[in-house]
C-alpha cells in the first residue's frame, strides 16, 4: 500500500515538472489571500481591483465573461450593482427599428472597449489587447504571480537590445521576445482608492491581479469550502472502510 501511495504521489509531483520550462526569470511572489486549500478572496481588495480595471484597463481590455450581476461576489448590494451597470450604454433597436442606446442592466456583461478586432489593433500599434477574463489561468501555471510580475516588470532594456517602435521591454513577458505592445500601465497614485488605501504601484498591481483572478475563477471560494467537506467525508469513509476490512479479514486468521 505504501508503495502505491508513493508511486501515485511521485506521478503527481512529477507531472507539473514534466512540463516545458517556462521562459523568463523567476516571478515575483505575492502571498495571495486566495492561495492554498483554505484561501479566500479579500472583498475589499477585489473592489479596489474593480476600480483599477474600470479606470485603467477597461479602455483597452474587454472582460467578456463577467456580468455586472457577478459583482455581488465582491460584496456589492443589488442597488450598487444597478448603479454600476447604469453607467454603461448598450446599443439597442427601438420600436421604429432605428439604432438607439439603452442603459446597462445587472444581466449585461462588461462591454468591449472596441467595436471589432481591426479597430482594436489599429488603436494599439497593430497589437490586440487580450480579453482579461481568463488571463490569470491562460498565461502561466503560476498565473497570478505572472500577471503581478508582468505589470511591474518594465525596466530599461539590457545594453545592446533594440526595442522596436511602440514596444516596451518587460523582463517577464512570456512571449519570449520580452517586448510587449502595452506600455507600463501602473504608476504610484494612478488611481485614488475610494477606501483610502495608499495607492503604491505594488498595491495597485496586487489589487488588479486579485480582481482578475476572481474573474477567472469565480467559484474558487466555493471550491475550497466544498473541498474541505468532501475531504473530511472521504477521510471518515476511508477510516471506516479500513476498520471494516481489518475486521472481515480477521475471520481468516481464526480459521
Amino acid at each position, binding site marked *: 500500500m505504501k508503495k502505491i501511495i508513493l508511486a501515485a504521489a511521485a506521478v*503527481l509531483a512529477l507531472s507539473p515538472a514534466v512540463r516545458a520550462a517556462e521562459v523568463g526569470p523567476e516571478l515575483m511572489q505575492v502571498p495571495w489571500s486566495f492561495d492554498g486549500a483554505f484561501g479566500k478572496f479579500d472583498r475589499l481588495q477585489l473592489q479596489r481591483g474593480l476600480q483599477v480595471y474600470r479606470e485603467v484597463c477597461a479602455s483597452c481590455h474587454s472582460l467578456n465573461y463577467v456580468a455586472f450581476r457577478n459583482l455581488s461576489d465582491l460584496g456589492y448590494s443589488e442597488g450598487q450593482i444597478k448603479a454600476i451597470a447604469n453607467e454603461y450604454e448598450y446599443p439597442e433597436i427601438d420600436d421604429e427599428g432605428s439604432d438607439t442606446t439603452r442603459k446597462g442592466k445587472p444581466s449585461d456583461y462588461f462591454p468591449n472597449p472596441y467595436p471589432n478586432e481591426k479597430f482594436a489593433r489599429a488603436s494599439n500599434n497593430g497589437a490586440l489587447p487580450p480579453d482579461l*477574463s481568463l488571463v490569470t489561468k491562460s498565461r502561466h501555471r503560476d498565473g497570478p504571480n505572472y500577471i503581478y510580475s508582468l505589470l511591474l516588470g518594465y525596466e530599461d532594456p539590457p545594453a545592446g537590445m533594440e526595442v522596436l517602435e511602440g514596444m516596451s521591454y518587460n523582463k517577464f513577458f512570456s512571449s519570449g521576445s520580452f517586448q510587449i505592445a502595452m506600455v507600463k500601465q501602473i504608476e504610484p497614485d494612478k488611481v485614488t482608492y475610494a477606501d483610502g488605501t495608499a495607492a503604491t504601484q505594488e498595491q495597485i498591481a496586487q489589487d488588479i491581479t486579485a480582481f482578475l483572478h476572481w474573474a477567472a475563477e469565480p467559484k474558487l471560494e466555493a471550491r*475550497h469550502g466544498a473541498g474541505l467537506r468532501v475531504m473530511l467525508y472521504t477521510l471518515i469513509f476511508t477510516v471506516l472502510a479500513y476498520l471494516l476490512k481489518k475486521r472481515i479479514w480477521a475471520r481468516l486468521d481464526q480459521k
Partner: protein
Amino acid sequence: MSTEKSVLQRAFEWHEQRLPIGGFIDGVIGTKYPAPKNLNYWWNFGSLNGLMLVIMIASGIFLAMNYTPHKDFAFDSVERIMRDVNYGWVMRYMHANGASFFFIVVYIHIFRGMYYGSYKNPREVLWWIGILIFLAMMATAFMGYVLPWGQMSFWGATVITNLFSAIPVVGDSIVTFLWGGFSVENPTLNRFFSLHYLLPFVIFGLVVFHVWALHLPGSNNPLGIEATPADKIPFHPYYTAKDFFGVGVFMLIYFAVVFWAPNMLGDPLNYEKANPLVTPAHIVPEWYFLPFYAILRAIPDKLLGVIAMFGSILILFALPWLDTSRIRSAVFRPIYKWFLWLFVIDCAVLTWCGAQLPEGLPLILSRVGTFWYFLHFLILLPIIGWVETPKPLPASISEAVLKGRG
C-alpha cells in the same frame, strides 16, 4: 432462526427465478467468485478502473447537457458550465482531472500485469482486451480534449490528425476524411463530440469481455502460481471490503486535486480560445500521451515516427510471446525484475522528453529512450527468459504464506 421469509426476501426470490441478476452479480464480484487469498494492494486498481469509468460517464453526461459542439460556442459553453451552471465547475473539474486519474490507474494496472506476469498463459486474451480498452481510452481522451476548443485543443488535434498524412498514397485522403473538410474545423469538432460520447460505452462493452475473460482462469496472484481451491477466498466480503478501502485512499488524492489544484495537470494555454491564425510556440499533449509523443518525435522520418508511436503500444499484444519465461511473477525472476524497473524509468524519461522541445539533450534522451523501449520488448525480454535461472517456486500459496512471503 425462523423459517418465515420477509416480503422483501420473497419478492427478491420471485424476481431471481425470472431474472437472476442477484445471482449474476454474486458470481462476478460476490461470494461465488473465489479469488486467491494473497492478492496485494496492486490488485485494487482493477476496480478503481471501473470506478473511474463510471465517474467519467456520469460527469460527462452532465457536461454534455450544457455543452455546445460548435466552434463558435464550444469554449463559451465550457466557461458557462464553469460559471453559471449549478455545480458545473465540479462536473468539469472532476471530468478533466478524472481523465488524468483514469490514466494513472490504468498505467499502474498495466504495470501490475507486467510485474506479476498476468499476461501469460492462460490470460493472453484477457491481456489483449485490456490493451484494446487502453487504445479506446486514448482515443476518447484525445477527442475529449478537443471539445473545450482551446488553443491546445485545436493545435493538438491539428498535429495528431496530421500524422495520418504520413501514410503513403492514401494519407491525405484519410486526413481529409477525419477532418470532414480541409482543416480542423467545425465538422471535426462535431464528429469528435459524437465519438467522444460513443467510445466510453464501447469501453464499457470491452470491460464486460475483460471481466468474462478474467473469470475463466480466475485472478492471477503475487506469486504467479496456480491457486488451489484451498488457497482461495470468496471475493465478497474479503475483496469488496479491501477494494472499498482502496477507493477511499484513491478518492482522497483525486478529490484533493479536483478541489484544491484543479488546473495543476492541464495546460494553461487551453484557457485561451482556439485561434487558427496563432500557432503556439510549443504544442504539447496532455501528460498521459507524452511518452508516445516523445517516441514520435525521436525519429526524424515522419512515417517511421508514426509507425514507432503506434508500434510502441501494439507491441504489447505480442508481449505474452516476447517474454519467453514461463515463470509469471517477477518475485521469482531476479534478472527480469531489474529490467522491468529500468523499463519504468525509461517510460518516465520519455514522459519528460515528450514535454520538451525536440532538440539538444531532450532529443538525444528521447532517441535513447525509444531505442531502449523497443530493445526491452524485442531483444531483452526473450533473452532474459532464456538465460535467467528463476528462484524456486513455492509448492502452494499457503506454503508461501506460512513462510512469510505471501
